[in-house]
């Protein structure tokens, strides 16, 4: 435009240029850091808003794992008679449930990012990644609460039997939680990106998470499968080494195999990378299709 030509100047500085397409690797992670206050506030909001107008409040986090543990005790322990690797069955199920719950909560909540937040995304810009990140963080709070319940039950059994395991392997626990977060986040943002236009995946994720639990040694130890033909399939599941290592870290028994964890780590890195790529591409225009 001729009108522009007299003011055009090559050194002109613009803070922001909005264009149809961005570079493939323009992940805007710097932007996410700029909005870290928002991230914290979202975590707070999730936590506070969930318990407004409830009487038991955060105690609800205790009730769910307790009842699930009781059901597992009955179904897998008493009815199916599956051994628990020498670990007290209550602790075995409860530990599996708490780490599994964290993963499934991360995955189901983040996979809903775009659809559930379309209202707010449609009105104001902030790095969209803040939402799934805040989901993962607020679920850590819930995990910690459940973990304290687990510790309480462990100490009670410890006092009763006079045997309480505590070792360096406990240092693994934060890493394992981080891995679960990465896996849930990576898968979640890929699925959330796919569901913006076609909702088929959100239907799938509902029961896929449930079924995935049976393909992960939550209610049975991996050692129980040795010699069975499908054991290899279960060990290809990147969740398997994490759950097994979690029990190893807590109780000092079971199989924490390093190669498995390295394999899981690789899968997580790949999923996170792919997820960020897809997510940053979709977040630009998803409002038109959601």
């Amino acid at each position, binding site marked *: 435009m001729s009108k*522009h030509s007299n003011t055009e100047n090559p050194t002109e500085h613009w803070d*922001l*240029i909005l264009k*149809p397409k961005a570079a493939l690797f323009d992940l805007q992670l710097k932007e996410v850091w700029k*909005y870290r*206050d928002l991230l914290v506030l979202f975590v707070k909001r999730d936590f*506070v808003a969930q318990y407004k*107008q409830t009487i038991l409040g955060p105690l609800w986090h205790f009730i769910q794992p307790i009842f699930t543990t009781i059901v597992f005790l009955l179904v897998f322990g008493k009815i199916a008679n599956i051994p628990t690797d020498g670990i007290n069955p209550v602790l075995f199920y409860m530990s599996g449930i708490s780490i599994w719950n964290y993963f499934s909560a991360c995955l189901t909540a983040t996979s809903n990012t775009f659809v559930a937040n379309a209202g707010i995304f449609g*009105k104001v810009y902030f790095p969209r990644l803040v939402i799934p990140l805040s989901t993962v963080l607020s679920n850590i709070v819930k995990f910690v609460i459940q973990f304290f319940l687990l510790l309480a039950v462990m100490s009670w059994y410890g006092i009763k039997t006079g045997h309480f395991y505590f070792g360096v392997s406990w240092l693994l626990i934060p890493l394992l939680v981080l891995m679960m977060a990465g896996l849930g986040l990576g898968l979640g943002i890929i699925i959330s990106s796919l569901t913006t236009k076609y909702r088929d995946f959100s239907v799938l994720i509902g029961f896929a998470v449930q079924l995935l639990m049976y393909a992960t040694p939550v209610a049975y130890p991996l050692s129980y499968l040795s010699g069975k033909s499908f054991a290899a399939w279960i060990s290809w599941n990147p969740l398997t080494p994490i759950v097994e290592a979690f029990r190893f870290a807590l109780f000092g028994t079971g199989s924490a195999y390093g190669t498995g964890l390295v394999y899981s780590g690789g899968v997580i890195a790949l999923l996170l990378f792919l997820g960020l790529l897809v997510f940053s591409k979709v977040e630009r225009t998803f*409002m038109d299709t959601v």
Partner: protein
Amino acid sequence: MTDIVIRVENLSKQYRLGSVGTGSLIQDLNRTWYLVRGKEDPYLKIGEVNDRTQKGNSDYVWALQDINFDVNHGEVLGIIGRNGAGKSTLLKILSRTTTPTTGSVKIKGRVASLLEVGTGFHPELSGRENIFLNGAILGMSKQEIKSKFEEIVDFAGVERYIDTPVKRYSSGMYVRLAFGVAAHLEPEILIVDEVLAVGDAEFQKKALGKMKDVSRQDGRTVLFVSHNMTAIKSLCSKVLYLGNGQKIQYDHTEKVINNYLSHNANSSLLQSFDDQLTAPGNEFVKVKRLEICPVLNELNEPITVNTHINVEFEFWNEVDDKEINLSLHLFTIAQECVFNVGSPAKILTKGLHKGICLIPSNLLNDGLYMVSMMIVIDRSHALFNYENAVSFEVNENRTPGGWHGKWPGFIRPQLDFTLD
């Protein structure tokens, strides 16, 4: 050189109409196939002009097409247009909730949008918590919000409710709080869309004042979308007029608004009906004719502030032996009433009656006016109100040499004025 803070270049946005399903999946696959081979997106060629009233042949429409404009630092730019003209799409792109299909937007400084008030407000959280959350969503840091907190609460006037969940707020309080947060954001560029439609009169005044302050004192740039021409007029220095996704006009406020209104107003001098059955009215009265008859020397002369104007009317009366009088309302284009005059009341027989009302020269200011005619019975009840039936424009007749700005005031009477 003026300081340009927003530059919009060849901006276009295409939307796909219809539902998402297998049809759109096939189009998606087709598009991917074209892009993989390095060809242009085939669907970008087939878009149509976005006229929602016409049936189109294509699933793709251009919500915006080839928009170009610059906004200077400290300017308040009004954006007007009928529903579906592309105003919201433009704001969505500027506020980064979606990206353009082609073209680009360059921006200097922080942009904050107020597309709808209360974005991100959580009903369960208290006013205090929501101020922090909303502020952070709009891009403020915790420190910034803390330093503005008192001001925001004060502006919103919700001191007493600050620790109550916002779901217990009245809608007015809710809006005030939300606008308060956004107004104290101090972005370099503020985008406001129709927020002023809600809230009470006092608050609207406050909000308009705040917007004025933001632009005049702090030198910020404001983009303001509204259907309220009075607000646009009092706030904006320039106006962008969009229609069917295209730029119709981009100029000084007064010019664009008059153009907009003359496009959209019922800009005819005559309403006439020969058939009593289809004429506007009811079982008591029917309007036959309402006409603006300026007293002109030549046929195609424009109406100016020096023109005598006769408002002539004819109507069929169907009520017998009642006192009837006529009442004319003259409105500005912004629907502000300039005056209301009544004819003498008379007992009228059934049948056709007519009358004339003379608006003298040197009374009206220049601008666009609309006339409503009300037929009144017993000097108390309106039988029928023929609203905004005719309109006319009064033009400027000042000779070059003096001041050229818009003459202020609703009317421009010639009064005896001496100077010794």
